[in-house]
């Protein structure tokens, strides 16, 4: 027990002097907050731009349909002349959408036949879709309006063509839109923990082997368990700091950005929320340190250990990504999966849903138990003589 303390203390000093490893770790912490902040700003700006600005529409053949053009103008559409080759302009991305009014339109329209209009756009271009939708709605409105006028002229009630009336009730609130962002928070928090401790944990284990200081260390009178546990625990404070920095980073981003103005809802993380999420995530710090220590115990160099980094950071975070799109209920089995349980708990917390104390306890105990098993596995690797000759 005392030996664990000696190793812990030495590794902590050693790690603290390893500026490069922990500054890179800190960078990972800020990655999530900066990315989410950027996305909120981007999304907010697109929403605002599209709603505030009048629709510019390039129309070719305006002379063929004066009544349609004046209808467009009534709907606040700014009609502009279309280029000679509208299709090429859309493909090149110069225009989002072009309305072509063929020569035959006027004659067909006057004869009471179906008159054809052509709308040219690229449906795969996300940024064009608000424009496309708006012009389609307007044209649809014109079609219905003209149809009703013609029926009325023939003395038929417009109701005849309206068989079914569909009323839509959309339960999505601005809040639930913002929840997509909130659902992504757990992912970035766990991402930061895993990436933050990775370099520190592998440097003190695989790095020690690489630099040839492991063999002399193991000749000292101490159990391999003490070595592994001491080293594993020495990465824990760094994981905690990373977790804290990430959370404060998110709080700061939500504070600094005019989130409400941008996406219509307020997301706030006060001190109480930060403390609660910190406690929920604490067992994950141990899990991350244990996993990294295990990897470092069977890899020969820090470089080799680094090749596992991408997977390790990703796998525990996958359920979090899933959560962003699928609703998962906080049932018992989800609490039994380390990192998954915590992500659901963070989500519940951010949505101000009631959290069961039993769920909190089960997820914490389970994650710590898995961490202990993984650490035990690392000790087994250390007890094998391949750690010296491999």
């Amino acid at each position, binding site marked *: 027990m005392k030996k664990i303390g*000696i190793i812990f203390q030495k590794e902590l000093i050693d790690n603290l002097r390893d500026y490069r490893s922990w500054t890179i770790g800190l960078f990972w912490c800020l990655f999530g907050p900066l990315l989410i902040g950027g996305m909120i700003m981007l999304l907010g700006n697109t929403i605002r731009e599209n709603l505030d600005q009048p629709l510019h529409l390039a129309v070719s053949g305006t002379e063929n349909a004066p009544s349609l053009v004046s209808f467009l103008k009534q709907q606040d559409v700014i009609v502009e002349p279309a280029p000679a080759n509208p299709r090429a302009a859309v493909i090149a991305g110069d225009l989002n959408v072009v309305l072509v009014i063929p020569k035959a339109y006027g004659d067909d329209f006057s004869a009471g036949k179906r008159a054809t209009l052509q709308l040219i756009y690229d449906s795969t271009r996300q940024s064009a879709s608000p424009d496309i939708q708006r012009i389609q709605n307007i044209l649809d409105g014109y079609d219905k309006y003209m149809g009703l006028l013609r029926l009325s002229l023939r003395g038929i009630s417009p109701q005849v063509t309206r068989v079914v009336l569909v009323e839509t009730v959309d339960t999505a609130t601005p809040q639930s839109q913002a929840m997509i962002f909130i659902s992504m928070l757990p992912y970035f928090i766990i991402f930061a923990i895993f990436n933050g401790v990775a370099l520190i944990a592998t440097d003190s284990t695989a790095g020690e082997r690489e630099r040839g200081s492991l063999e002399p260390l193991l000749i000292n009178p101490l159990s391999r368990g003490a070595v592994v546990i001491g080293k594993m625990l020495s990465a824990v404070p760094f994981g905690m700091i990373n977790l804290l920095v990430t959370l404060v980073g998110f709080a700061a981003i939500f504070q600094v950005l005019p989130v409400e103005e941008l996406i219509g809802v307020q997301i706030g993380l006060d001190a109480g929320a930060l403390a609660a999420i910190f406690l929920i995530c604490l067992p994950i710090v141990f899990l991350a340190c244990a996993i990294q220590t295990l990897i470092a115990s069977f890899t020969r160099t820090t470089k080799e250990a680094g090749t596992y980094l991408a997977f390790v950071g990703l796998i525990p975070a996958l359920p979090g990504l899933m959560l962003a799109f699928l609703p998962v209920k906080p049932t018992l089995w989800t609490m039994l999966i380390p990192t998954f349980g915590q992500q659901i708990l963070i989500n519940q917390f951010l949505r101000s849903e009631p959290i069961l104390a039993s769920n909190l306890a089960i997820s914490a105990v389970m994650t710590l138990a898995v961490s202990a098993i993984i650490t035990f596995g690392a000790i087994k690797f250390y007890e094998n003589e391949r750690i*010296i000759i491999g």
Partner: protein
Amino acid sequence: MIQVQGLSKSFGKVLAVQNVSFSALNGQITGLLGPNGAGKSTTLRMLYTLLRPDSGLAVIDGFDITRDPIQVQSRIGVLADARGLYGRLTTRENIRYYGRLHGLEGAPLESQIEKLLLLLDMQAIADRKTDGFSTGEKLKVAIARALVHNPPNVLLDEPTNGLDVMSTRAMRQFISRLRDEGKCVLFTSHIMQEVAALCDQIVIMAKGVVSATGSPNDLRRQTSHENLEDAFVAVIGSEEGLS
């Protein structure tokens, strides 16, 4: 005191060490001489408890290396084949770490560190981080940390490897000094002159087996060669791998 009886170790199909037996006494320097790949380091690694012998017995100060590794570890000071230091720690911190792992602390530990710094002429580099030290400086730190608990048995794996002439001389004097303190010193080398000049007893190894044991004079007599170098070559059967 180190007693080795029929020690064997293989890695897969490679028989690294076969049926090796010898004794290293207190107050004597015992040299394990042999060409590269003779099994010297593997033998030493079994003695310092990091490798488990397949068969045979080794006892250090009465403690079995496989049954009481912790007891053995606290009675040996080892300069291993791998002698990496902690580059972000100073000389003093490197030595102190090992001292604490051996259960030393406080004033006794600090005075022991001070003694070693003086003995190995390291006061000038005592509080510098060891990153960027020369081979000789690194070796001194590695030796100091190995001896911080003042062990009765000292195991050195190729202690003069990579040293310049002056450092080699200093290292040899240091090894003699350990003997004069009554320690049991066991070291490996592939340099004949070094072994001849230092050792009270020589164990010659080749291809995993002991081919001859005895004092330099014994070896001259056994092989009826006046020149020790000729005696070694006669015992090993070839000059390959020696210098």
